[in-house]
Every structure is written in C-alpha cells, then in structure tokens.
C-alpha cells in the first residue's frame, strides 16, 4: 500500500522533470535577440543590457556560470551553440576561448575606437568592457603612502609579517604574475614573488576579506582589486584602508578586464556586434562604471564619484592578452616560489 503510493508519487515527480526538460528544449522565437553567456556575476541585471534593449529593440538573453565550465559548455555545444556573445571575467579566460577557436574576428572600427589597444585582442576576437586595477592597499593608521612604491618593493624586508595576499590560486593574482612575466621575463618575476614569500605573507581567500584584515590590523599592506574597496567605502566611509597606485614611476599599475567577444558559431552575429559596440560606447560604459566601482574601459566615460578621489593613474600598457598567454607559466612560477 505504502510502497505503491510512494511509487506513484515518484512517477509524478519524474513526469514533472521530463516536462521541464521538454519545455527547455523548445527552439527560440523569431524576434531579434542575442544570447549572452556571461561569467560576470549579476549577469542578469546589468543595467547596460536593459539600455541596449530599450534603444535597439533587440532582446538580450543571459546565461551565467563560472568561466572555466562555461568555456567547456560553449566548446561542447560547438556549431549548435545558442550563444552569440561570450562575456568573461579576466582576460585570460577570453584569450583561452579565442585560442580554442570559440570566438570569431570582428572588424568594428567603432569598437576599436572606443577601447584602447592594450585592452583588446590584437586579432580583434575580444574586447575589454571594464577595467579592474589590482594595486597596493594600506592601513591608513599604520602606513604612510610615502613608504610605498612598487609591487616589487613589497618584497622589502621592512614588510616582513605585515603583508596580506590572496592565494595565488586566484585568477586575479595569476594574471598579475602573467603580465609581470611578459614584461620582465620569468626569472625576474620569480625573484619578485620570492621576495613576497620571504615576508611570510598571510594568505586570505577573497579580496574583501583581505581588506578587512588590513583594516583590523592583521597586516598593514596588501594587494587587491580597487572595486572591492569602493564597495566597502560606499557602506562605511570611515574604513581605514586606502589605495596606492603601484609602479607609477615605472611600468604602471596592473589592470585586468572583464570583456566580451562574438562566438564563432553565433546565429545572431549582426546583433551580437551591435551589442558589443553599444557596450563599449560612452553611455553603457558610464553604467558599468557606476554599478560596480570598476573603471570603464572606454577612457571617454567618467568614473564613479566615490573613486574619483583616488585620482588618475598610469595603467600598465602591456597588452592584456599576456594574462592568458603566460597564465600557466604564472601558476607554475607561484608553485615554484612557494606562493600558495
């Protein structure tokens, strides 16, 4: 009796699941639309996407996920993929997608005029949308900005036991190391990392956590992306941490991007290109800048007033494709140098 009841209940649930499967497999409509695979968190709520639909009537559909697995799905779907645009965080992921032949060349003078050369693919398969600066953060009660200068100088013994770093596992740090390898060569980059490691850095997962550790006095200096500080300051103006622009006298501060490319098998290629042209234009760029305290990739757009006070800074103009090209080398370098 009970067994039979359970069985019937099970069958009903199964039927529901199959219904879901069938519903999802139904082909999409005829109206102009563009499908975006996005590794940017909050992919569904980007104000810039809504503005695009309002302006052009083209509907933007978004599917979000982690960059690595999203790449696998796009690759496995091959020529049947519903994705027209891939948006990813970190240039390395875009470089990797381009290398695997998943992103097609786009010849758009408008996009090229919008975005500086070092923030887009030399072969025009992807382009930066927002800039993420990774620089030195310091506790304003314990450190004077005059004591700071470069990434390299964080290896100075005076920072022994005073440095906090996010784990080398995270892609932001891997990209930082990758561009350093590109610029200085592997040997010099390795000695730099060994300098950090010799200072016994406290390793903390998550940029926000790193900033909180600096504020609490667990360490005095750290490396994080600036928008995490922006977010905290928006809630707590008295937060005792400030950003210092690293390497201004030398190579410039390391920047990374979140960016976009048109997929090789895009079914709505024209709409996809239109979307990227719009997203790199001043109007959308302003929205990106306002929503997450990131820097717009298009220099014509202004920055959020909250971070405007940090001033202008010189970006490292190494082409950001290096983040992908030297990423594996960077991971290995960190392993060799003992940076966990």
């Amino acid at each position, binding site marked *: 009796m009970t067994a039979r009841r359970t069985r019937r209940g099970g069958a009903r649930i199964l039927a529901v699941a199959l219904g*879901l499967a069938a519903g*999802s497999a139904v082909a999409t409509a005829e109206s102009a639309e563009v499908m975006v695979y996005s590794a940017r968190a909050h992919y569904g709520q980007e104000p810039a996407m809504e503005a695009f639909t309002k302006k052009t009537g083209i509907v933007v559909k978004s599917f979000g996920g*982690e960059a690595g697995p999203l790449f696998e799905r796009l690759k*496995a779907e091959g020529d049947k993929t519903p994705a027209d645009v891939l948006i990813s965080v970190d240039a390395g992921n875009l470089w990797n997608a381009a290398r695997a032949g998943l992103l097609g060349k786009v010849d758009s003078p408008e996009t090229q005029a919008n975005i500086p050369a070092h923030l887009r693919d030399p072969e025009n398969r992807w382009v930066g949308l927002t800039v993420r600066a990774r620089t030195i953060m310091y506790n304003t009660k314990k450190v004077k900005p005059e004591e700071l200068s470069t990434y390299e100088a964080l290896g100075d013994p005076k920072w022994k036991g005073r440095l906090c770093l996010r784990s080398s596992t995270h892609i932001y740090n891997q990209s930082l190391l990758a561009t350093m390898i590109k610029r200085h060569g592997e040997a010099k980059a390795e000695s730099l990392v060994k300098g950090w490691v010799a200072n016994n850095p406290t390793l903390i997962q998550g940029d926000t956590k790193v900033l909180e550790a600096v504020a609490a006095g667990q360490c005095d200096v750290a490396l994080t992306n600036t928008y995490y500080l922006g977010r905290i300051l928006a809630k707590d103006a008295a937060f005792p941490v400030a950003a210092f622009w690293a390497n201004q006298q030398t190579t410039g501060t390391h920047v990374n991007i979140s960016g976009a490319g048109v997929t090789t098998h895009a079914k709505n290629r024209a709409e996809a290109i239109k979307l990227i042209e719009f997203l790199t234009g001043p109007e959308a760029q302003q929205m990106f800048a306002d929503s997450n305290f990131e820097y717009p990739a298009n220099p014509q757009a202004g920055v959020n007033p909250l971070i405007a006070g940090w001033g202008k800074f010189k970006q490292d103009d190494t082409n950001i494709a290096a983040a992908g090209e030297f990423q594996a080398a960077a991971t290995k370098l960190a392993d060799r140098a003992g940076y966990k």
Partner: protein
Amino acid sequence: MAVGPVGRVLALRSAGPSLWTWLAVGITTVLAVPIAAVVSSLAMPAGDVWRHLWRTQLLELVGQTLLLLIGVGIGTLLVGGGLAWLVVHHRFPGRGVLEWALILPLAVPAYVIGFAFIGLFEYAGPLQSGLRGWVGAGARLPEIRSYAGVVVMMTLVFYPYVYLLARVAFREQGAASVEVARMLGRSRGVAFLRITVPMARPALVAGVALAMMEALADFGTVASFGYRTLTEAIYRVWYGMFDRIAATQLASVLLIFAAGLLLLERHSRGRARFTQRGRRGPAVEPVRLAGWQAGAATGACVGVLALAFLLPVGQLAWWATSAVRAGQVAPDFATLLWHTCALAGATAAVASVLAVLLAYAGRLHGTATVRVAAQLASMGYALPGAVIAVGVLLPLAWADHALVPSLERALGRPLGLLLTGSAAGLILAYVVRFLAVGLQTVDASLGKIPPSLDDAARVLGARAGSTLRRVHLPLIRGGLLTAVVLVFVETMKEMPATLLLRPFGLNTLAVEIWERTAESMWQEAAVPALTLVAVGLLPVILLIRLTSRR
C-alpha cells in the same frame, strides 16, 4: 558499496544469473558513462602539468588529502557516533528536542557554514576583535585557516551522516544483547564497546565513508581555508592553467581514493552478518544522567548544534534582514523555489529507485559482477561536481552532434541541442553524484533483514520482485525515506553541476546564491541561502518525525 555477504540468499541463487544481474549491470553502465568520460582523459595528451606537479607538490597534495580524510573520518565518527550514543542511550535535559535538532545542520550548505565560521573566528572577526579590545592588541586565537580549522569545520558539516545512521542503528539494536553482556558481569562501558559499537559498525562505517567522500570532493571549503588538496589542485590546473584534460586526469586520482574508501568499508564488514533474528524485543533502557553528567551531555549537544547550525543560520538571518530592508530580494522567488524542488524531487525519486534495485540485486546475487557494479555506481560521490558535470556534458554533446542530425533529417526540421543543457542531463549528473548516499542508506537497512525472511517468502512461492515489494520494502521504509530525503537535500544544495548543465532559464536557489557570492556579496546572498536552508529543513523534520515512531 557493501552489497553482498549480508544478504546472500541461497535459496534464490539457484534461480540463475537472472534479470537482476542484468539490471544492476545496466544501471551501472549508464551511470558509469560520465565517470568513464573523466577516466578516458588519461588516454589524452596533457601539457607538462604532471611533471610540474611531481616536481613541486604532488606528494604534498596526496599527503594533505590523506590527512584531511583521516581527520574528518575520526572527527565525524566521534561527534556523529558519540552524539547518537548520547541521545539514544541516555536521558538528560533537552534530549527530546536535541535528538532531532542535531540533524538540522544537514540542511545548511557547506559553503554557508564555512563562510560563517571563518567570518566569526578570523582575525578581523568579532570574536578576536572583541578579545583584542578586552585583553590588548597582542591577544590572538589560533589561526582558523589551518588544518585543525578545516577538520573541525568539515566535521561540523558532515557529522549528521554518521549521526543519522548511527542513531537508527542504536535504536534498532534492542536490549537483549547488551543485557546478556551485563548479566555476564560486564560493565556498561565494556558492553558499549564490545556489543553496541560492533553491532552498529555497518552504519557507523557507512556514515564515515560518506563523510570522507564528501571531504574528498569538496572544493569550496578547502579553498576558503587555504588548505591544499587534490581537488583544490584540480581546479587550479583547470582554471589556472586552462588544462581541462590534465584536471580530469587528476580527478581520476580521486577515484583511486574513492575506491580505497569503498574497499575499506567492505573490508571492515568482512563476512560478518549483522541481522537480528526474530522480533527486536524491548529497547535498551536509557541511563538517566544527573548532575554534572547531565549538564555535560546537554552542553555537548548544544555546543555542536550552536556551531553547526545556530551560528551560520543566525548569521544568514542577520544579513537577510538588512538585505530585505535594502530591497535586495530576487523578484521571481516562487519560480526559483519550484525549480529547486522539482529538480531535487526528481533526482531523489530516480536515485532511490536505482539504489533499491542495486542493493536488492546485490542481496539476491552477491556475485563479483553485481558487487563491482554497485561500487562503480558509488564512485561519483567522491568527484567534485564540476568534474562530473563535464563528464556528463561531453557524452551528451557528442550524442547531440552524432545522433541528432539523423533524427533531424527524418523529421525534416532542426532540433538544436536536445540533450546538452536539458533537465534530463542535469538529473543524470545529480544521480551520478549522489547515488552513493541513497545506496549506502538503503543497503544498510536491507542488510538488517535476516535472509531467512527471503527464504520463507520463496518457500511460500513468491518471486524475487514480489518479495521485494511485499516483504523488504515495507521493512526498509525508514531507510528508504532517509535515502530520499538525503538525496533531495544534497541535490538542492548542489552548485557547480547545476551551474554548468542547467537548461537556459532554469535557475535554482543555488544559482541565485552563486550569482551573488561569486563577487563575495554575502549579504545579498543571504535571502536565497536562508530559503534554501528553510526548504531543506522541511523534509529533514518530516524524516525525523517518521523515523522516530516506534
């Protein structure tokens, strides 16, 4: 999986290598496809990642992984088994509530407990900040991001498996054996160690094996604690070196660990049988604790509950109120809920049916084929969700490209991707990942039924299928229900496979949580996370109520 010697039924074996063997092999073949896709990466060329890992840290990773498994194994055995023994064999203030409350942490995802735990105990957290303000700037607690921290944390997350299974086993034991020992002049302590624990061994070992496999597959917790394991290395190789092939090759190493655990579990049972003949008889008379002993018992239970449940849920509730005040709540909550429950319900149903079939096939035919089949079907539990997801994705995408075109020609219209990104594919991934939970639970219940019952049914003319339906299923109802609830709750919490394989538009609560936590906006994630916990609590409480009846 320990299918086999427990229920070897001689009378039925003569019926030949029947349908049941084929059924077991058939189920396993389907479930083994994703795992085979992972293992097949071994045949593909990878970069020089292996040489690099060998030179730098492979041994360290293997050692750290083993240490973690040992720590979590001992931790969950002591906490889960100890608490079960306390609540079943003793009476102390609050026991009635604590007995079921101790299962509640099951509904809290590990990533939530981990985050709350770190947030409270880290240097910048309220505890240490308060301590510094009180004692002075030099005051510190031991670093939470350490081996001990990870083991304590994982013990708190995974002990409910051991607790759940051990509690049922202790309850079902009956007083007879213990009383014989007492009559023969043994103390309570000796009777516990020599009778109660050995008799509950299958349940204890099954629970510990589940906890250890979870620890093996975990990425989120070890990553946030900065503890390096093989699974952490898989992600580093995959995301950091863009070498998915090498990453899946590393995952194959995890399978060796999983096989080791399963063998260990089987071996620990050996050829012993753990059935109870005849009626259970009177239950063990619980010891009434008084004074400091009663206080210590209550304190131990409340302490574990506070750390594993009240603390993280309280933290979530705190964030959720401020998120609601700020208006950061997803608009289509009902849809998210419905998707989450439908997927988890379907997975729980499929997994439980498969678990019963596999376990019963093992009971009927304890042959090597069936045993190996059951073991293979359990391996997925030790693999990280993202790796299984890729293992499911590749064969489905292959089928979509190789098989669907001919179907399209026959129908004369394009079908697109039928299998890739379908709910069926996602459910397959869930089943591969969580079947072990159902199988362990069902198998442990089935093992307690004496084979003489099978023989009796057989003598009375019942066939195997009808014996299962009319004799075994009613008897293992509690175990089956436990299996359904465990798989349901596990599926609800699952994140990486859901993210990769879900159909377009089919978002769940876990996806909603990811969207917010990916950029460490925990406050905004609190509302969906709290909902997930609340929904997970319902079946858990139902389970407790139904299994508490005598």
